[in-house]
Structure formats: structure tokens, C-alpha cells
């Protein structure tokens, strides 16, 4: 993942068992206790909506909801998430179809390369849960922790506005 010392052997300490709610269902998983929530979601549970881009809290691509709040899953340890309620971008789908936020992103061409979009979806859902009719300023503040490397912010903001109208 990161440039390291080339050692392949992992002196992994004993894995521990964790359980938490993920997208509405209970999951049980074994993992090293200081694995990040992101690593566990992607590599152990194969939930790949959250992405690792920067790995240090700058980009927001790994954003998930934890107990209703947007958090960076690259900066949460699995030990800290034990017993928590986690929702990833996948968790908002209804009957395997995009929900109104996801649909608004598609309708507005807000998705370019798409890499950042799961994080933007989670931040948008968190915003609209607490503020169903945000101003443009409030949208910008709520999405300040998500970077789009295609710089498609204007259409993303339009998508959030449209989602808010449909809410």
C-alpha cells in the first residue's frame, strides 16, 4: 500500500473479534485491533464504496457514517468502531437501486471519474439528515472535507440542491 521497508512478513499480533452494525445488518469480523475501519470494510468485508486515497484525513474518499456522523474510516480503528452503527454509500440504496441522493448525482452529471463520489454521497446524506433544505453555503461547508480530483464541484453542488428539493 505505502512504500515501506519491503518486508512482506507481517508480525501480525493476535487478531481480535469485533462486531458492529453495517448497512443495517450485524457483522462479525476478526482483525488486528489497530486495523483501520477502512481496511476491515474493504479487505475483510469486501465493502468497497469507501476508498483509500490519502490515508491521512485530507480527501474524504473513505467517509462513512458512524453512529449517524460522517467520519473518515481511514482514521478510525476497528477497535473504536466495535459496537457502532456504520453506514457506507452502499447502505443508502433502496431495493438495490440508487436512492434520491445517488440519483440526483447521476441526473446532474456530478460523477466524472467517480472515485470520490461514495464519500460525497455519505457527506450529503449526513447533511440532508440534519438539514433538509441547506443553502449553497451550508452545502459547501458540509462537503468541505471531500475532495474531487476532477474538480467537478459545481455539478456536485447542483446535485445536492436537487436532492434537497426532492426530500
Amino acid at each position, binding site marked *: 500500500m505505502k512504500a515501506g521497508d519491503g518486508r512482506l512478513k507481517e508480525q501480525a499480533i493476535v487478531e481480535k473479534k469485533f462486531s458492529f452494525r453495517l448497512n443495517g445488518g450485524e457483522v462479525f469480523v476478526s482483525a488486528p485491533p489497530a486495523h483501520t475501519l477502512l481496511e476491515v470494510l474493504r479487505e475483510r468485508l469486501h465493502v468497497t464504496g469507501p476508498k483509500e486515497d490519502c490515508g491521512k484525513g485530507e480527501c474524504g474518499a473513505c467517509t462513512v457514517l458512524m453512529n449517524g456522523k460522517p467520519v473518515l474510516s481511514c482514521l478510525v480503528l476497528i477497535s473504536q468502531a*466495535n459496537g457502532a452503527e456504520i453506514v457506507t454509500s452502499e447502505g443508502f440504496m433502496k431495493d438495490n437501486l440508487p436512492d434520491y441522493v445517488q440519483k440526483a448525482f447521476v441526473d446532474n452529471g456530478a460523477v466524472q471519474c467517480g472515485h470520490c463520489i461514495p464519500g460525497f454521497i455519505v457527506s450529503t446524506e449526513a447533511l440532508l439528515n440534519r438539514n433538509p433544505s441547506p443553502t449553497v453555503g451550508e452545502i459547501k461547508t458540509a462537503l468541505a472535507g471531500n475532495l474531487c480530483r476532477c474538480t467537478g464541484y459545481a455539478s456536485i453542488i447542483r446535485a445536492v440542491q436537487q436532492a434537497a428539493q426532492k426530500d
Partner: protein
Amino acid sequence: MRLSEIDVVSPASLKDALSVLRDRSDRIKPIAGSTDAIIQLKEGLVQAKELLDLSRLRELRYIRREGSTVQVGALSTYSDIIESTVLGSSCRMLVDACRTIGTPQIQSRATIGGNLANASPAGDSIPPLYVLDAIIKVQSRERTRQIPIKKFFIDYRKIDLMPDELITEISFEAVEKPCDATFLKLGLREAHFISLANVAVWVRWEPEGASLSDLRVAMGAVAPVVIRVRKCEDFLRNRTLTEDAIWQAGQIASRESSPISDVRASIEYRRAVIPSLLYKALHTLIDSRRTWEKP
């Protein structure tokens, strides 16, 4: 040290956490919201074989007011502070400062106790706590200490906290008329930025006119630790806040600073912006004061 090689201890109570810390403070590192700690560990800036995770200790996550004293549990997150009705009416300055820290995702996790323990000279919650004359409560299994904030910060990233102690509470007097307070920071962009300089100002207005019977001014990111600019305060105390007086006070504050040049700004720039920051902060307070007099 890779994260996968580190063990994590998750105590169920503060008492348990303090016991663990007493027994193995030499090899265990406490973490709270861990928005800085995990980065420091990933980048090898900090080594640890074991982490003591405090983030699930609900008992240190409270914001309450008793009489005129506001008490903030050390594990209160920035989101807790931003959403607190108690702080909204008792100390708007701290709410405003926390709103400028990181991003919504960081604010969900990062704690005010963590900001103090991390002890960055640019920590944005620290200047407000300086001008509030906050008391930092630290506890070990054996004892509790109440430390005035100016004594808590000793030197660059050096705080008065023993290896077996945890920061448990921050307390201060509510800010109420005729007092007021404000926080202002300057960075290179509009969101998610580290202060290249910041200022907190607390004032007590005279009953009439634009003069101050008392004030406290603290500045961050302009010295190895957050500083109170005492000469600037002395100059402004009992003085009418004319434009001239405010600019002179800014020059005095600038001379009291000892900034460094870094990736965010040069020494010269930091020195030059200090008067402007103070000017804007004082004018925010003057404008606020004018609204009090309206019928």
C-alpha cells in the same frame, strides 16, 4: 511500526483507563478521536506498541453549566461543542473556533482534550481557552490536579501531564454581558486549513462607551506555544478603542510574538498580519457591543 502490529486496549471506564495507564505508561499511548494520532503512527512520527483507546468513554463526553462555570468533558468532540446549546449561550467563541477546525468528518471524531494533548502551537481551541483562563483537570489513579491553562503549556509541544495522567475536563467562566469574546484565524484557504496565525480576544466593557475595563488577548501559531500578549493587553486596558489605539495595540502584539517561517507563512508575514487580525477581532466585538444598546 505498522498499525497491524499494534495492540489496542479498550477500557470500559475512566477508572480502568487510569489503572492501565498506571501499570504500563511506559509503553502504552492514549488516543481519543485519533484524527492526528493515527496519522502520526502511520507516518512513524510516533511509536507505540499499544494504544489506549479513550474514544468510547462516554463518561468524559459532556458539556454542562453549574452556576457561572462551564464544564466540558475532555472527550467532547468538536461536533458536540458546535451543537451544544450550553456553549451556544455561554461561550460562542469556543463554538466558532471549533467550527473552523478540520472538516465535518474530523469534527465528528476529534476531541477538545486531544487538541490540548497534541499541543500544537496552531491548535485552534487553545487561544480561546487561554483568554477564558480555563482550568485543565488531569487525573491519575492516585490524584487529581487542576492546572491553569497558562501553566499547562510549558514549551513547544510540552505540557504538564505525567505519563500516568489523562486530561479529563476543561472548565471556565461563562462569557456574559458586560463581557464578550471572539476568535479569528487566518489560513491559506476557506476550509480545512491549519492556522498560520489565530487570535482570541475576551473583553469586559465599561457600562458606557467604547472602552474596556479588562481584556485578554491570546495568539496561536506565532510562537512555540500559544501566547497571551500582555503588553498589548496593558496598552488597551481602560482605553477608548479608537482606530489609532487599535493599530498601536496590534504593533505591540506583533512585537511580543516570536513566529517561525514554515510552509504556511514567513516570519515577516506572520508579524505583519497580527495587527490586522487583532483589528478585525476587536471590530467584531465593537460591532457586537453596538447591538447591545439597541432598544
